């Protein structure tokens, strides 16, 4: 695995950005109450990973990571559709998209 020196040292910056995005997404997912926002946060996490993958792929100079990114996007899109439809159904029942309203299921 020979390293491509073109972005050599700046690899870390990309990684930091990616990890930061991922962390933001995660924290947002934990703290925010609005389902839509939650969905966005998770998308953010996925995209952070995408960024990371792209970085690595350029670092290693092989492309399959970039192909993986496409897959991830597709999956994200699929998740988004399903997620939105689920949210809508949920809204139909409780007339609310505040996640804290949904706590009938507990011990």
């Amino acid at each position: 695995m020979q390293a491509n020196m073109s972005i050599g040292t700046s690899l870390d910056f990309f990684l930091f950005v990616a990890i930061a995005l991922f962390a933001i997404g995660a924290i947002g997912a934990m703290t925010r109450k609005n389902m839509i926002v939650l969905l966005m946060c998770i998308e953010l996490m996925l995209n952070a990973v995408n960024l990371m993958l792209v970085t690595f792929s350029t670092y290693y100079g092989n492309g399959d990571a970039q192909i993986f990114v496409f897959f991830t996007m597709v999956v994200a899109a699929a998740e988004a559709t399903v997620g939105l439809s689920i949210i809508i159904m949920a809204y139909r029942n409780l007339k609310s998209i505040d996640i804290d309203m949904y706590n009938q299921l507990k011990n």
Partner: protein
Amino acid sequence: MDSIVILFITGLLGLFVGMRRQAVLSLSISILGLIFAGIAAYFRGTYISPLASYSGYIPTPSNVIILLCVVSILAVLGGFQRYKQDEEHTGDYLSLLLFSLCGAIILAQPNDMMLFFIGLEILSIPIYVLVGIEKGSATSAEAAVKYFFTGSFASAIILFGIALLYGATGSFQIIEIQSNLAIGIWQSPMAMLGSLFLLAGFVFKIGAVPFHFWGPDVYQGASNAVLMYMSTIVKIAGIYAVLNVFGQIFRDSYFFWIDLIALIIVLSMFYGYITAWKQTSFKRLLAYSSIANAGLMLFALSDILNSNILLFVAAYSFATIPLVVINQLANPTQDAIANWEGIAWKNPLVGVALVIALFSLAGIPPLAGFFGKFSLLLAAVPHLPYAAILALVASVVGVFVYLRLLILALKKPTVQTKQSLSIEQSAVLLLTTLGSLSALYFI
């Protein structure tokens, strides 16, 4: 591979046939598809997975697929009563089920992280939908919401782990990753963190502590029909993914993560069984018992070669499905353990199936559940002796959980009311019971 194709095609076919609004037709089509998939897998038994050349690879690829198909057949049959209630969607449900089964098969046998991730999503997304099929009920919606968000959160984590691994090794090929790690890279922080993130994702999928939270709520919200499917298939595929992906890739860092696994096992078993004791909803009780069983499954990681995980998951599925079917009879509308009182007396088949299933789950010989546990522990004791001892202590609590259920179900009612079984339900009960009983001959 070809069983995946068969299933996929059957799923598409099912979507079209679903237009005809004939539940039985869709059912028979999907059953046929499943059977064919199983047969195909059987004849592909000789198929050499690229991993097979490795020592420490589970040489049973086709058996897993067959088991998945058989369990899905049981689940479909057992849940059919529910699916056929809304005629216009029966086909869709069954197709969704088949699609996610494709995912499960992929997930169980990946040789590439990309494939693995895809399989994971193909398995999960249809189940997100299936959990929410009770359109009218708020709990079903809530369950769907919770499952969806926790699930996608987990897949993000897994993805992150995959990325880190790629960063460490520069490949998605499981073989390459493993070989690259083998030459010492596995000690690099990136690889280790990657392994931990991946592990987290896996633990979430099989629902062990501390990533078990979705379990109880989703199980309770989901309808019995879906529960039958998700409580078995997801676990089977999940544990095989753990063994074939995690176990293979990180074979060389065994001593790095095995203690963590032991910790997870013990925590899940005690938490699962103890919490199950106070439950009032059967589905929740099942969820907690499944948490404990997930912990038990992880013992397979301690010695992948010798532990017969197939037997365990088979026994687990063959014990869980009849219980859920019986719960369907006991709790047609609401969901309370109290309604189990005297259920065993309503129908002789139900009584036998219930006793056998519960004792099998409790691990009383000579039922399948015992041999599953036994084979796992037999392999695990030399590596994780203390975890094994604690696990057995925990399973005493587990036995009490099941006995409580049993005592309730066997209480002789003052007035004998008969309950008739639909043909497919009785078929499921009969098959699973025979399966649990005949284990002695299969080991």
